[in-house]
Protein backbone atom coordinates (compact mmCIF):
# COMPACT_ATOMS: atom_id res chain seq x y z
CA UNK A 1 0.00 0.00 0.00
CA UNK A 2 1.41 3.41 -0.94
CA UNK A 3 1.23 6.53 1.22
CA UNK A 4 -1.46 7.83 -1.14
CA UNK A 5 -3.55 4.70 -0.62
CA UNK A 6 -3.18 5.03 3.15
CA UNK A 7 -4.37 8.63 3.00
CA UNK A 8 -7.34 7.67 0.87
CA UNK A 9 -8.27 4.81 3.13
CA UNK A 10 -8.01 6.99 6.23
CA UNK A 11 -10.22 9.66 4.64
CA UNK A 12 -12.89 7.15 3.68
CA UNK A 13 -12.69 5.40 7.09
CA UNK A 14 -13.34 8.69 8.90
CA UNK A 15 -16.18 9.44 6.53
CA UNK A 16 -17.77 6.06 7.16
CA UNK A 17 -17.41 6.45 10.94
CA UNK A 18 -19.03 9.91 10.91
CA UNK A 19 -21.81 8.69 8.62
CA UNK A 20 -22.58 5.68 10.78
CA UNK A 21 -22.66 7.46 14.16
CA UNK A 22 -26.18 8.00 15.60
CA UNK A 23 -25.88 11.74 14.95
CA UNK A 24 -24.57 11.06 11.43
CA UNK A 25 -27.58 8.88 10.65
CA UNK A 26 -29.99 11.45 12.11
CA UNK A 27 -28.28 14.28 10.22
CA UNK A 28 -28.40 12.38 6.95
CA UNK A 29 -32.13 11.72 7.36
CA UNK A 30 -32.80 15.35 8.25
CA UNK A 31 -30.81 16.70 5.32
CA UNK A 32 -32.63 14.36 2.94
CA UNK A 33 -35.97 15.60 4.29
CA UNK A 34 -34.87 19.20 3.72
CA UNK A 35 -33.26 18.78 0.30
CA UNK A 36 -34.75 15.80 -1.54
CA UNK A 37 -37.88 17.71 -2.58
CA UNK A 38 -35.76 20.34 -4.25
CA UNK A 39 -33.79 17.80 -6.23
CA UNK A 40 -36.95 16.00 -7.34
CA UNK A 41 -38.99 19.01 -8.43
CA UNK A 42 -39.65 19.26 -12.18
CA UNK A 43 -37.29 21.50 -14.10
CA UNK A 44 -38.94 24.86 -14.94
CA UNK A 45 -39.98 25.06 -18.61
CA UNK A 46 -38.23 28.38 -18.98
CA UNK A 47 -34.88 26.86 -18.07
CA UNK A 48 -35.36 23.86 -20.38
CA UNK A 49 -36.34 26.22 -23.20
CA UNK A 50 -33.20 28.25 -22.62
CA UNK A 51 -31.03 25.13 -22.94
CA UNK A 52 -32.91 23.80 -25.99
CA UNK A 53 -32.68 27.17 -27.75
CA UNK A 54 -28.93 27.17 -27.25
CA UNK A 55 -28.70 23.57 -28.50
CA UNK A 56 -30.52 24.50 -31.71
CA UNK A 57 -28.37 27.54 -32.46
Amino acid at each position, binding site marked *: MTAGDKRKSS*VSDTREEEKDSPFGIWLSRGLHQLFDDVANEPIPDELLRLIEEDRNK
Partner: protein
Amino acid sequence: MTFHDQVIAILPKLRVQALSLTRNRAAAEDLVQDAVCNALAAQNSFIPGTNFSAWMHRILRNRFISDLRKRRETTDIDDVPASSFASPATHEDSLALKDLSMALSRLPADQREALVMVVIQGMSYEALAEATDCAVGTAKSRVFRARRQLEAWMSGELPTNDKLRVKVKALRDAMDARHRAGQSSDDLMLS
Protein backbone atom coordinates in the same frame (compact mmCIF):
# COMPACT_ATOMS: atom_id res chain seq x y z
CA MET B 1 -24.22 12.49 -24.24
CA THR B 2 -24.02 15.99 -25.70
CA PHE B 3 -22.99 19.07 -23.75
CA HIS B 4 -26.62 20.17 -23.47
CA ASP B 5 -27.78 16.73 -22.31
CA GLN B 6 -25.16 16.89 -19.59
CA VAL B 7 -26.41 20.32 -18.50
CA ILE B 8 -29.99 19.02 -18.23
CA ALA B 9 -28.89 15.88 -16.37
CA ILE B 10 -27.01 17.82 -13.71
CA LEU B 11 -29.78 20.36 -12.98
CA PRO B 12 -31.18 18.55 -9.88
CA LYS B 13 -27.71 18.49 -8.32
CA LEU B 14 -27.15 22.15 -9.15
CA ARG B 15 -30.42 22.99 -7.41
CA VAL B 16 -29.32 21.26 -4.23
CA GLN B 17 -25.96 23.03 -4.33
CA ALA B 18 -27.69 26.37 -5.00
CA LEU B 19 -30.12 25.92 -2.11
CA SER B 20 -27.28 24.97 0.22
CA LEU B 21 -25.51 28.20 -0.69
CA THR B 22 -28.42 30.64 -0.82
CA ARG B 23 -30.68 29.16 1.91
CA ASN B 24 -33.62 30.39 -0.12
CA ARG B 25 -35.60 28.52 -2.78
CA ALA B 26 -36.35 31.48 -5.03
CA ALA B 27 -32.74 32.68 -4.88
CA ALA B 28 -31.59 29.12 -5.59
CA GLU B 29 -33.73 28.91 -8.75
CA ASP B 30 -32.29 32.23 -9.96
CA LEU B 31 -28.75 31.07 -9.19
CA VAL B 32 -29.20 27.83 -11.17
CA GLN B 33 -30.58 29.74 -14.15
CA ASP B 34 -27.71 32.25 -14.04
CA ALA B 35 -25.14 29.46 -13.74
CA VAL B 36 -26.66 27.65 -16.73
CA CYS B 37 -26.49 30.87 -18.76
CA ASN B 38 -22.82 31.25 -17.81
CA ALA B 39 -22.11 27.62 -18.72
CA LEU B 40 -23.82 27.92 -22.11
CA ALA B 41 -21.85 31.07 -22.84
CA ALA B 42 -18.60 29.33 -21.83
CA GLN B 43 -19.27 25.91 -23.37
CA ASN B 44 -16.32 26.19 -25.74
CA SER B 45 -14.00 26.34 -22.74
CA PHE B 46 -15.18 22.93 -21.51
CA ILE B 47 -12.80 20.18 -22.61
CA PRO B 48 -14.79 17.03 -23.52
CA GLY B 49 -13.73 14.02 -21.49
CA THR B 50 -12.88 16.12 -18.43
CA ASN B 51 -15.06 16.28 -15.31
CA PHE B 52 -18.24 18.02 -16.44
CA SER B 53 -19.88 17.82 -13.01
CA ALA B 54 -16.99 19.60 -11.28
CA TRP B 55 -16.85 22.21 -14.07
CA MET B 56 -20.56 22.96 -13.70
CA HIS B 57 -20.52 23.07 -9.89
CA ARG B 58 -17.58 25.49 -10.01
CA ILE B 59 -19.48 27.78 -12.39
CA LEU B 60 -22.46 27.89 -10.03
CA ARG B 61 -20.23 28.51 -7.02
CA ASN B 62 -18.33 31.30 -8.76
CA ARG B 63 -21.59 32.89 -9.80
CA PHE B 64 -22.84 32.76 -6.20
CA ILE B 65 -19.64 34.41 -4.93
CA SER B 66 -19.76 37.07 -7.61
CA ASP B 67 -23.45 37.84 -6.87
CA LEU B 68 -22.68 37.96 -3.16
CA ARG B 69 -19.89 40.49 -3.69
CA LYS B 70 -22.24 42.70 -5.72
CA ARG B 71 -25.00 42.40 -3.14
CA ARG B 72 -22.67 43.17 -0.23
CA GLU B 73 -22.24 46.65 -1.63
CA THR B 74 -25.87 47.33 -0.74
CA THR B 75 -26.95 44.72 1.79
CA ASP B 76 -25.77 42.17 4.31
CA ILE B 77 -25.75 38.40 3.71
CA ASP B 78 -27.50 37.87 7.04
CA ASP B 79 -30.50 39.75 5.68
CA VAL B 80 -31.45 36.56 3.85
CA PRO B 81 -34.29 35.10 5.92
CA ALA B 82 -33.16 31.86 7.50
CA SER B 83 -36.71 30.58 7.79
CA SER B 84 -37.04 30.36 4.03
CA PHE B 85 -34.29 27.72 3.90
CA ALA B 86 -36.21 24.83 2.54
CA SER B 87 -39.48 23.13 2.26
CA PRO B 88 -43.09 24.11 2.89
CA ALA B 89 -44.27 24.03 6.50
CA THR B 90 -45.90 20.63 6.11
CA HIS B 91 -42.49 19.11 5.44
CA GLU B 92 -40.97 20.76 8.46
CA ASP B 93 -43.54 19.79 10.98
CA SER B 94 -41.12 18.35 13.47
CA LEU B 95 -39.33 20.73 15.78
CA ALA B 96 -36.06 18.88 15.29
CA LEU B 97 -36.21 19.42 11.55
CA LYS B 98 -36.92 23.11 12.02
CA ASP B 99 -34.01 23.31 14.41
CA LEU B 100 -31.77 21.56 11.90
CA SER B 101 -32.89 24.01 9.22
CA MET B 102 -32.10 26.97 11.49
CA ALA B 103 -28.77 25.52 12.56
CA LEU B 104 -27.81 24.88 8.93
CA SER B 105 -28.57 28.47 8.04
CA ARG B 106 -26.08 29.59 10.69
CA LEU B 107 -23.21 27.60 9.23
CA PRO B 108 -20.77 29.35 6.92
CA ALA B 109 -21.93 28.86 3.30
CA ASP B 110 -18.86 26.85 2.30
CA GLN B 111 -19.35 24.37 5.16
CA ARG B 112 -23.07 24.03 4.44
CA GLU B 113 -22.38 23.45 0.75
CA ALA B 114 -19.68 20.85 1.51
CA LEU B 115 -21.86 18.94 3.96
CA VAL B 116 -24.86 18.86 1.63
CA MET B 117 -22.83 17.77 -1.39
CA VAL B 118 -21.29 14.91 0.54
CA VAL B 119 -24.41 13.76 2.39
CA ILE B 120 -27.14 14.40 -0.19
CA GLN B 121 -25.19 13.87 -3.40
CA GLY B 122 -22.85 11.20 -2.05
CA MET B 123 -19.78 13.07 -3.30
CA SER B 124 -16.36 11.85 -2.27
CA TYR B 125 -14.02 14.39 -0.65
CA GLU B 126 -11.93 14.26 -3.82
CA ALA B 127 -14.92 15.11 -6.02
CA LEU B 128 -16.00 17.83 -3.59
CA ALA B 129 -12.53 19.35 -3.70
CA GLU B 130 -12.62 19.42 -7.50
CA ALA B 131 -16.15 20.86 -7.58
CA THR B 132 -15.36 23.59 -5.09
CA ASP B 133 -11.84 24.32 -6.29
CA CYS B 134 -10.01 23.56 -3.06
CA ALA B 135 -7.60 21.00 -1.60
CA VAL B 136 -8.98 17.62 -0.49
CA GLY B 137 -7.92 18.44 3.08
CA THR B 138 -9.92 21.67 2.98
CA ALA B 139 -13.00 19.87 1.64
CA LYS B 140 -12.74 17.25 4.37
CA SER B 141 -12.23 19.88 7.05
CA ARG B 142 -15.32 21.83 5.92
CA VAL B 143 -17.52 18.74 6.19
CA PHE B 144 -15.99 17.77 9.53
CA ARG B 145 -16.46 21.25 11.04
CA ALA B 146 -20.03 21.45 9.74
CA ARG B 147 -20.91 18.11 11.35
CA ARG B 148 -19.24 18.98 14.64
CA GLN B 149 -20.88 22.40 14.83
CA LEU B 150 -24.33 21.02 14.03
CA GLU B 151 -23.90 18.24 16.56
CA ALA B 152 -22.93 20.78 19.23
CA TRP B 153 -25.90 23.01 18.45
CA MET B 154 -28.39 20.17 18.13
CA SER B 155 -27.29 18.59 21.38
CA GLY B 156 -28.07 21.70 23.38
CA GLU B 157 -25.17 24.06 22.83
CA LEU B 158 -27.47 26.61 21.25
CA PRO B 159 -26.16 29.70 19.50
CA THR B 160 -26.61 32.91 21.49
CA ASN B 161 -29.31 34.26 19.22
CA ASP B 162 -31.34 31.11 19.74
CA LYS B 163 -31.69 31.46 23.50
CA LEU B 164 -34.64 33.80 23.18
CA ARG B 165 -36.38 31.36 20.84
CA VAL B 166 -35.91 28.55 23.33
CA LYS B 167 -37.24 30.70 26.20
CA VAL B 168 -40.29 31.72 24.19
CA LYS B 169 -41.03 28.10 23.30
CA ALA B 170 -40.73 27.01 26.93
CA LEU B 171 -43.08 29.82 27.96
CA ARG B 172 -45.61 28.87 25.28
CA ASP B 173 -45.52 25.22 26.30
CA ALA B 174 -46.06 26.17 29.95
CA MET B 175 -48.98 28.45 29.00
CA ASP B 176 -50.56 25.71 26.87
CA ALA B 177 -50.30 23.28 29.77
CA ARG B 178 -51.94 25.78 32.12
CA HIS B 179 -54.75 26.45 29.63
CA ARG B 180 -55.38 22.73 29.20
CA ALA B 181 -55.60 22.40 33.00
CA GLY B 182 -57.97 25.39 33.16
CA GLN B 183 -55.49 27.43 35.18
CA SER B 184 -54.40 31.01 34.79
CA SER B 185 -51.06 31.64 33.14
CA ASP B 186 -50.74 35.32 34.08
CA ASP B 187 -47.98 34.66 36.61
CA LEU B 188 -45.83 33.02 33.92
CA MET B 189 -45.52 36.29 32.10
CA LEU B 190 -44.09 37.92 35.23
CA SER B 191 -41.39 35.32 35.87
